[in-house]
């Protein structure tokens, strides 16, 4: 079953638009949603959750149309926009006491376990928590009401490397049983190299590619060659950078001709993102 199915999502703002955004997340997997700042990650996530109106498109979560089953779906979807940035002067205890009343499947034991595991003190005010702790508190809330789908907008931004690593380990642990699925947006591509099963890459409001991680990376080749070689492949490159030795550039695997004998390597996610954003610059 699909945990999340986004079909042809369109939303037009004055200076930005989501164009036919479509992607699917299978149940029990982690999908990384990457894109530069302002690429449309948050707008897409907000549209999925009906926080923002979209002009056209279909969103299904856990097999059901989200808008038609909004209340039922919100009971089993946990989401967080970064850390907790609401009621920051209130104690964790007080916020939890309000939040838990909304959920039919709230499990107090699970909640207490997560508090212990995350080292969260219920008597602290939200403002007293570090960024990492805020993300963990949000996760504790989401996981204690039995979420089957976690939608997290940049949960790792602002965390130190250790906290990020811990969080990514937790994500992997959560999906182990195949019951929980996670979609998380980030611009820190190394997070995805560590834990994502699928990658969806959004650029300027358009989905460039959405695929299993290895397949996603294998779609591209990073070329490294001389100036004369550049002339031969220039038109096929997604974009390139010239340097004193020649050039480096990104190309679609299918456009790459091995007989040209240009050095090629497997790019990493960061390189893919950089060359795609550079492409934009070329045409401006």
């Amino acid at each position, binding site marked *: 079953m699909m945990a999340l199915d986004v079909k042809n999502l369109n939303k037009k703002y004055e200076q930005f638009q989501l164009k036919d955004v479509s992607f699917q997340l299978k149940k029990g997997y982690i999908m990384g949603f990457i894109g530069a700042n302002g690429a449309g990650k948050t707008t897409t996530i907000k549209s999925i959750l009906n926080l923002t109106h979209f002009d056209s498109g279909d969103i299904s979560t856990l097999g059901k149309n989200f808008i038609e089953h909004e209340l039922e779906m919100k009971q089993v979807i946990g*989401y967080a*926009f970064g850390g907790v*940035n*609401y009621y920051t002067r209130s104690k964790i205890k*007080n916020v939890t006491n309000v939040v838990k009343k909304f959920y039919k499947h709230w499990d107090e034991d699970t909640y207490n376990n997560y508090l212990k595991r995350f080292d969260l003190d219920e008597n602290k005010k939200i403002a007293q928590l570090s960024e990492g702790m805020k993300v963990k508190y949000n996760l504790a809330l989401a996981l204690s009401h039995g979420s089957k789908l976690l939608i997290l907008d940049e949960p790792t931004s602002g965390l130190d490397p250790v906290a990020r690593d811990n969080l990514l380990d937790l994500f992997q642990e959560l999906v182990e049983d195949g019951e929980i699925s996670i979609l998380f947006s980030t611009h820190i591509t190394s997070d995805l190299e560590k834990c994502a099963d699928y990658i969806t890459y959004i650029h300027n409001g358009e989905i460039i590619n959405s695929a299993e991680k290895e397949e996603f990376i294998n779609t591209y080749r990073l070329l490294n060659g001389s100036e004369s070689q550049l002339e031969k492949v220039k038109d096929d490159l997604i974009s390139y950078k010239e340097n004193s030795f020649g050039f480096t550039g990104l190309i679609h695997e299918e456009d790459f001709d091995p007989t040209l004998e240009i050095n090629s390597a497997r790019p990493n996610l960061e390189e893919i993102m950089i060359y795609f954003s550079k492409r934009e610059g070329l045409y401006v």
Partner: protein
Amino acid sequence: MYNLLLKELKLGVSPFFYILPFLTGALMLIPGWLYFIVLLYFCWITVPNMCGAYKSQNDLQFSLMMPVTKKDIVKAKVAVIVILELLHIVTAVIFGFINTQLYPDFTNFFFGPTVGFWGLGFIMLAIFNLIFISMYFKTAYKFGAPTIVAITAAMLFAGGAEWLGIKNSTIFDLFKGSGADNLAIHVPILLTGIVIFAVFTIIAYHIAIKRFMKVDI
């Protein structure tokens, strides 16, 4: 919706605003004062401060994270406004009653705390609600313009009513003269005020829902 209301009352509204009605209500003890002001304190102090707190505490995002609909959010917020308004009116009525016991023979230049006066108070808050609630939910965070327009309209009503009470002999008689103790007329005025309050608030609630549905969070 009940959970959202609890959320508003526990997290959203500072306890200060539950105490404020008693402080402003006590102003009813000033003999011969302009008693509309006692109710207007709700519009001047509570409303902008409450909305400012919602905005700074990121309340909308928090509320929408819960399994609730946008309609429920409007319902809960309107309910909080009505609850606080009723708290203001009820405490003012109690202090108004004490006022009449303390100064039984006082001649009021402005409206005294008669039963019918509270009907006018309800109408004033009805006008405030109609304008404020419907305007506020256009954005659900900008409260400056809705507050100013709604307060101006409420004050114009209060000012107009006071002016009529001084200039118009029938109304003068009804509220300050021989009719002041005539419950047969004052109770219907109060009931009319309550009905107008309910109708205007319900209309505002429906307009607010329509507008809030279009708001992108």
